[in-house]
């Protein structure tokens, strides 16, 4: 499976989707101009991945900020992972947040409420 590597910028997050090395991670700030087209390859990749996933899937979110439009796309990603979980595959979401960022921690909690998938909060 192809690996996706997107370098982060001021307004776009850094994304690594590497099935072979078991690294799935989104980090940084997410306020892209056109969210749907930015995240489209990510969602497509995940759709392909769900057909033939690794034994255990750990998805890391390490964001410092995302806007409302991005939040919907992040939810779409989480829902793909939820689907995998429902099919009986082992999935874990790690939500990283800066120790002093209450907002980001609570955002993680809210997400955990919406989707039914193992969710782990990690402060750094």
């Amino acid at each position, binding site marked *: 499976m192809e690996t996706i590597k997107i370098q982060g910028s001021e307004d776009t997050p850094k994304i690594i989707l590497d099935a072979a090395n078991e690294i799935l991670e989104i980090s940084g700030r997410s306020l892209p101009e056109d969210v749907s087209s930015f995240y489209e390859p990510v969602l497509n990749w995940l759709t392909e991945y769900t057909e033939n996933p690794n034994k255990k899937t750990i998805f890391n979110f390490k964001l410092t900020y995302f*806007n409302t439009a991005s939040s919907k796309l992040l939810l779409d990603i989480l829902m793909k992972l939820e689907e995998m979980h429902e099919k009986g595959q082992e999935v874990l979401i790690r939500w990283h947040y800066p120790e002093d960022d209450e907002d980001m921690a609570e*955002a993680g909690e809210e997400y955990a409420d*919406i989707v039914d998938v193992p969710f782990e909060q990690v402060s750094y």
Partner: protein
Amino acid sequence: MSEEILRALMQLFAIIAKQDEGVESTQVEYVKNFLQQQLNDEEVKEYFLLFRQYSGMEDPDSGSDTDEDKGIRKLTSVRDSVRILGLCKKINKTLTQKQKVVVLVRLFEIVNADRKFTDQRMQIINTVGEVFKVVKEEFTSVESFVVRNEAHELDDNNILVINDKRDVPREAKKILTKQLDGDIFVLKIKSADLYLLKYTGIEDLFLNGLPIRNDRIYLFANGSTVKLPKAAPIYFSDVAAHFLADTVSHPISYIARDLEYKFPNGNTGIHHISFSETHGRLIGIMGASGAGKTTLLNVLCGIDRPSAGEVLINGIDLHNYKEKLEGVIGLVPQDDLLIEELTVYQNLYYNARLCFEDKSETEIDELVNKILLNLGLFDRKDLKVGSPLKKMISGGQRKRLNIALELIREPAILFVDEPTSGLSSRDSENVMDLLRELALKGKLIFVVIHQPSSEIYKMFDKMIILDTGG
């Protein structure tokens, strides 16, 4: 509106209002007003407090101000963004598409209250629209409907303009009225089958007896009327007819010529009846009991053969060439045809299976769900029908389900025998509203009716009145 939804709505309002420079007094006013229309004073206070809490108005020191020291434009907090998603998901589960569009309109309205359409606010509404799965085009048409106020800006074929100006809009539909300040706009949202109304002038207009404020958007529901100060009122059916006018697909001509019917014992049932009708009409048949209403209906729909005269549908003789007209006619008899042991859904489903042998499971399922939605029976779809003595669904719902059994075949001409007998006035109106709407959509409908209320009587395009003796 349920408690849970109101709560969710207060949170959405609060999150939107507190973006950018924070809550404006016009928005507070809007929320108060909104609550006052739905609730009593006690509850208004309760929900208003909720709004103040969520929007951070109760404690100005905490929450919303954390980013201010950075000196940059304040961004929507990530927690709020995710909270919005959670709220929308919750709303998704409980509300119908129609109600969701209404929620969306209310969100637009609160932004419209101070007319600050900033990026962040619009992004929130956009996201809500996406989670609600509102079609993109309809989202934009709702947006422009709320934001814009001039007739030339609102020239879209989903919009109807009502004013006293002679000019004809290029795309929009138009009803000309007399002496009206400003314009009335009606937007049709096709997927939700919903009409929204707003007024831009300064005169006192009334929607179903309540005054219309010119900064608000109203639902223009089935059967509503708008009273104008100096001109004839505007009825829902007028408006709907303008929108439905271009959807008629099969023109029908229905001609009855010199019909006469004699019962087997030689008595005359029908005595020389002639008339001609076309699609899009709702015809009533009235008369004293024993006057021959049902007999006439049976002859008109082809069950009984007249002893003289003929019925021509698009030039084809109904009684001699019945097979050529197969599927064109639908009949809803007075007695019910439901199977008591089955649920509302199953009744319709098995009926559809018998009608369409070549349709797939999923097609039938879709069709059944669509018709249940159209007739407002979707929430009841898993209830058992029950017998008339041991009721599980109401009389009006029973009747609508009976009509649905015929409608699923999409007949062009529908005969309905006493759809309102035994129903409460409210239920009768619902059933008749449904028939009226079907007529507007281009069907020809004959209804035998007893004691119509004046409201119902007004819905008919024509009455055929029979007296005893045929």
